[in-house]
């Protein structure tokens, strides 16, 4: 295992860890706002780390830049969707944003 | 010339359907004519080709199989093309009254109608297992869309049931195709045989494909979807469903059985298929006997009549092939005629419950006439195409001393007579209250003429059989050719 591979592995594992934490948060936190909190922050960081890990692994600037773009897009999407969900949750005044039939 | 004509036969209706999506409604009438009327003339060219030189291959895009897709025009596919073109044209005459181009629903109906037409043409030509899958899906989706086009709850439910079963059937077929490709790496159904040993794996794969097709062709006991679908669809749609759509799946089974697996020893399976056919005949007829609605009776009659097509498998001879093909032709015309007549009756009376049809023959003599005439052929009574088909079946059975099939075919006409005469008797019964003639809702005479033409066609088929039978005899599968 070369150094770069080791680095990549480290980054990927860390990213997965953040994803895992975010997912646990999504499942365990009590209301919509907290869940968003877990989703956006932890997952975006996880995505960032995984992209970075993959970029190191690929050792190719073109791929690395595409991966960077992916991260940016992920950020953008997460931002807007979190914003919309939060607005909805606030307007509804409810802490449960699940669809009507769920649980 | 033949290549060009065949390509146009498939693509003209397809392109016209696409045109209907783009062009404004005022063009609809013209487009319908463009999409349908030239077809019989185009078909003359391939006909001459087949008559002169026998089978004809169209290598699409110039890439022969196994690389590309091939169309095979042989006598049997030519027969199917003629049947499709002829029946669709006559039913379209009727449809131009039930879905007049000036009305709103016409924009929904006609594109699907033409796609259905084109796809069946493509299907009967196709010699490629996967291409057949795609075309079958096209046929199915267009047909189901047409069933539901009027949005009646019963039709919607029937369409949904049909759709689910058809999708499942397609999957079974596709599974078989996948396995066969995995074994041979070939998809051309006339080439597969060269690369395939009849091992358990391939036989099972073929069986899966055939079961899928049996579902699509509603062979007992896989018929459950058919009566509701055919019984609740709009008249012209019922007509084409019973006359063509279920038949093309049977046609594919024939192809797989006699061409792809022509050399294999499938005797016990053939007997099974025959028994299914026999059960279909009995079950469909008995079920038709207890129905209370005219269209349901006709639909169950289709279940029964499809059974005859299964008898080809155990009998498997030149005569049987001619018989089954002739049955295809005569039943196609007769059943289309019946559904069209029933549609006119339904439209005029507002119901097709038998209890409300007493004395209807006085009010709608043309439609009752068409119904009765077509019934003669369905019952297999002479002189009619149905009789001739039955005769050929009997001869085929006698030739092989298959007495069981012989008695079945001979006696099964009685069952058909039982349910059809029940209908006719009701129509001749004196009405308890006087029927009020509602001129406004009456179907125009030309709509009845379409039904009568088809019914007369079924009768005339009892006399002018030689061209069809010669054609079929010229296109026998390799194993059966004398």
């Amino acid at each position, binding site marked *: 295992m070369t150094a770069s591979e080791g680095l990549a592995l480290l980054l990927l594992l860390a990213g997965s860890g953040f994803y895992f934490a975010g997912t646990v948060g999504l499942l365990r936190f009590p209301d919509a706002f907290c869940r968003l909190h877990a989703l956006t922050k932890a997952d975006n960081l996880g995505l960032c780390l995984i992209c970075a890990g993959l970029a190191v692994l690929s050792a190719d600037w073109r791929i690395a830049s595409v991966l960077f773009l992916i991260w940016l897009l992920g950020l953008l999407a997460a931002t807007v969707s979190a914003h919309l969900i939060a607005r909805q949750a606030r307007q509804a005044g409810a802490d449960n944003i699940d669809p009507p039939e769920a649980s | 010339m033949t290549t060009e004509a065949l390509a146009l036969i498939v693509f003209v209706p397809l392109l016209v359907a696409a045109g209907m999506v783009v062009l404004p409604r005022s063009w609809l009438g013209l487009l319908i004519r463009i999409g349908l009327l030239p077809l019989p003339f185009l078909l003359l060219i391939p006909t001459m080709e087949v008559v002169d030189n026998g089978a004809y291959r169209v290598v699409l895009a110039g890439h022969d199989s196994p690389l590309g897709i091939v169309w095979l025009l042989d006598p049997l596919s030519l027969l199917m093309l003629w049947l499709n073109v002829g029946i669709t044209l006559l039913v379209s005459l009727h449809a131009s009254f039930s879905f007049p181009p000036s009305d709103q629903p016409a924009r929904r109906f006609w594109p699907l109608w033409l796609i259905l037409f084109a796809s069946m043409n493509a299907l009967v030509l196709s010699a490629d297992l996967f291409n057949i899958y795609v075309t079958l899906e096209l046929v199915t*989706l267009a047909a189901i869309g047409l069933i539901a086009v009027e949005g009646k709850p*019963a039709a919607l*439910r029937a*369409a*949904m049931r049909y*759709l689910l079963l058809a999708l499942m059937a397609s999957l079974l077929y596709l599974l078989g195709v996948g396995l066969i*490709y995995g074994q041979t790496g070939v998809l051309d159904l006339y080439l597969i045989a060269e690369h395939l040993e009849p091992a358990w794996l391939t036989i099972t794969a073929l069986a899966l494909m055939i079961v899928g097709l049996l579902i699509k062709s509603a062979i007992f006991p896989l018929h459950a979807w058919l009566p509701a679908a055919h019984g609740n669809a709009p008249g012209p749609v019922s007509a084409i469903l019973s006359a063509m759509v279920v038949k093309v799946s049977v046609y594919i089974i024939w192809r797989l059985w006699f061409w792809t697996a022509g050399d294999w020893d499938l005797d016990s399976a053939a007997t099974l298929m025959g028994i299914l056919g026999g059960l279909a005949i009995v079950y469909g007829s008995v079920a038709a006997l207890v129905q209370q609605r005219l269209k349901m009776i006709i639909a169950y009659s289709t279940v029964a009549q499809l059974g005859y097509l299964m008898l080809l498998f155990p009998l498997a001879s030149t005569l049987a092939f001619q018989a089954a093909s002739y049955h295809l032709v005569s039943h196609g015309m007769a059943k289309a005629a019946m559904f069209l007549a029933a549609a006119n009756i339904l439209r005029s009376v507002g119901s097709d419950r038998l209890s409300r049809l007493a004395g209807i023959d006085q009010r709608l003599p043309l439609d009752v006439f068409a119904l009765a005439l077509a019934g003669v052929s369905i019952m297999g009574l002479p002189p009619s195409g149905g009789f001739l088909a039955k005769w050929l079946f009997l001869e085929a059975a006698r030739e092989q001393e298959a007495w069981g099939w012989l008695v079945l075919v001979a006696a099964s006409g009685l069952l058909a007579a039982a349910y059809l005469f029940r209908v006719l008797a009701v129509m001749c019964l004196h009405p308890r209250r006087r029927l009020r003639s509602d001129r406004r809702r009456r179907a125009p005479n030309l709509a009845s003429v379409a039904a009568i033409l088809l019914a007369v066609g079924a009768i005339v088929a009892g006399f002018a059989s030689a061209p069809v039978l010669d054609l079929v005899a010229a296109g026998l599968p390799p194993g059966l050719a004398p």
Partner: protein
Amino acid sequence: MDNAALYVLAAAVLFGVGVYGLIVSAHLMRKLFAINIMGNAIFILMVAVAGPIDGAPDPVPQALVLTGIVIAVSATAFALALMVRLYQETGRATLADDNGPGNDD
């Protein structure tokens, strides 16, 4: 591809799950799920059983499956539209009762 047999088994299980779902589900959307799962199983199978050519996967089944995926989504789209309409007309998204009102005329 040494993992073909593995995926074939996966396809078999998925197919079984699909069949199970198709039988036990009453709701039409669930039936569509099940049919789609069965379809996916068959797609996997088609690609997996085709032998590789010089170590590379055979492109033909992939192309066929690509076509199959588009057909599946088309059929699903239509089925969903049909289901919505059926629900609007009958208040049911099942096929359970065929003798309900509206089966006549």
